[in-house]
């Protein structure tokens, strides 16, 4: 696990159809320490997914730099694991093969990579589903696979792009609790993108509020761990923090 540093990041699009330049990100700087969990919240269209796509290397940056463990990154790579909102599982591979994909790309032998995959599947309570195809699983199960697929590749930084936005409310709460549990167990460096204020406060150590391509505020979340919705729903600190973030997002 390593730290993630973003310095003076900016992004300007050339809009093919309009034929003009459009600035999506203005001079954003952000530091995620080794083993930290940072959530970025903001209304849709604030540029949070653009930032994540640049860190992941899916789109080029227009200015600034991105460092993982102090070294600049270029293009997509296994040092940054990504969990997608649309899951992006390989439908033609079984759950086990999906999770073993990263190790396979590193050249790990079949027996060993399947052992790694099984270990991570057990972590997310997915052992039973190992030989099923993604299509045969519920949305919540699919995203569990998405999370452990990224983790099984042992990335330096875990990037999560609204991963729980397309699952139902009950499942989302379970997944959030599981994520905090897995995070405490493995302590990966996480950058978590979401538009859900409660989710950000529940999960993260720090919440960064983004608006119109700029950082509005950076708020520390010192709630005790392990966290559970049962305990936090009635917690005064949680409510106060959530309210504060919500006010910021709504003022944006």
């Amino acid at each position, binding site marked *: 696990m390593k730290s993630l540093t973003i310095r003076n990041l900016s992004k300007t699009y*050339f809009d093919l159809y309009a034929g003009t330049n459009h600035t999506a990100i203005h001079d954003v700087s952000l530091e995620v320490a080794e083993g930290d969990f940072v959530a970025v919240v903001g209304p849709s269209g604030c540029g949070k997914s653009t930032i994540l796509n640049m860190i992941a290397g899916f789109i080029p940056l227009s200015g600034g730099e991105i460092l993982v463990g102090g070294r600049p990154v270029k293009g997509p790579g296994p040092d940054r694991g990504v969990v997608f909102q649309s899951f992006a599982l390989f439908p033609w591979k079984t759950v086990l093969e999906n999770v073993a994909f990263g190790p396979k790309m590193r050249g790990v032998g079949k027996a060993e990579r399947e052992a790694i995959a099984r270990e991570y599947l057990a972590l997310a309570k997915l052992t039973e589903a190992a030989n099923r195809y993604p299509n045969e699983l519920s949305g919540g199960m699919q995203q569990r696979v998405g999370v452990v697929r990224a983790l099984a590749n042992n990335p330096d930084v875990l990037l999560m792009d609204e991963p729980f936005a397309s699952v139902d409310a009950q499942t989302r709460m379970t997944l959030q609790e599981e994520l905090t549990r897995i995070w405490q167990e493995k302590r990966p460096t996480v950058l978590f993108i979401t538009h859900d204020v409660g989710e950000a406060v529940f999960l993260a150590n720090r919440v960064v509020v983004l608006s119109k391509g700029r950082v509005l505020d950076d708020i520390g979340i010192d709630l005790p761990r392990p966290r559970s919705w049962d305990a936090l729903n009635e917690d005064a600190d949680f409510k106060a923090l959530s309210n504060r973030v919500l006010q910021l997002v709504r003022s944006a």
Partner: protein
Amino acid sequence: MTILFKSWHHYLRLTQRFPSVGSIVPFIPVVALWWLVTALELFPRVFLPGPGDVLRSFGSLVYKGILPDYLQDSMVRLAVGAFCGIALGIPLGILIGMSRHAHTALWPVLLFFQAIGDIAWLPILVIWFGYGLVSMTFVIVYTVIFPVVLNTVLGVRSIPIAMHRAALSLGASRWQVLWEVVLPGALPNIVTGLRNGLGYGWRALIAAEIIVGTSGIGFLMFDARRAGSTVEILLGMIILGILWYIVDSWILAPIERATGQRWGLVSK
């Protein structure tokens, strides 16, 4: 690099405003390449004539009135075949789709007769009806009908049972259910079937005209083959391609989109 980028963006905007541009421009380099190959005489002219030769032969065939006549013959045959195929295929498809017994009795037979394929019927049709219009119409109807029936059955069967129940509980009679629920519900599939059917029917028509025809574009090509005239064969192929392209992408595909995608029944 930026110039390429900019011109590509202009091209995209142009195709947005006039979609037909996007389906014409890509052919320009192909024709240019064809012209270049023939101008350099990489192949003997007799084997591969150039675009100019084909254009000249187009002009002379139009002037003589042969081409318009043949084109009309082919289109009328296709239209008659398509109409009969639809008129027979949709009711049959709905029957098989809605009745379990009809499905058990007819489905396997349908699959088998579809598998025989239109063209294999030609020899016996020639014995029955001789060379001419009846044989050809039979082949086209035969070809169009199977995709229409099979897709109509799929469409009817894909309508959720809840929709039948909803209509019935809102007071619809059996006939109203058929008219208001089953037919529109199966429509996207019917249109897809029609599109496939016409695709096959078109080819069947060409084959029939080649083998047993006395007029039509297919006959033009085969007549040219007998005379060893590559120019007219190529002309025939180009006309076939353009005609079908127009029918398919300007008439059938928009209809398919308008039903399936508009209603969100088919995700493309």
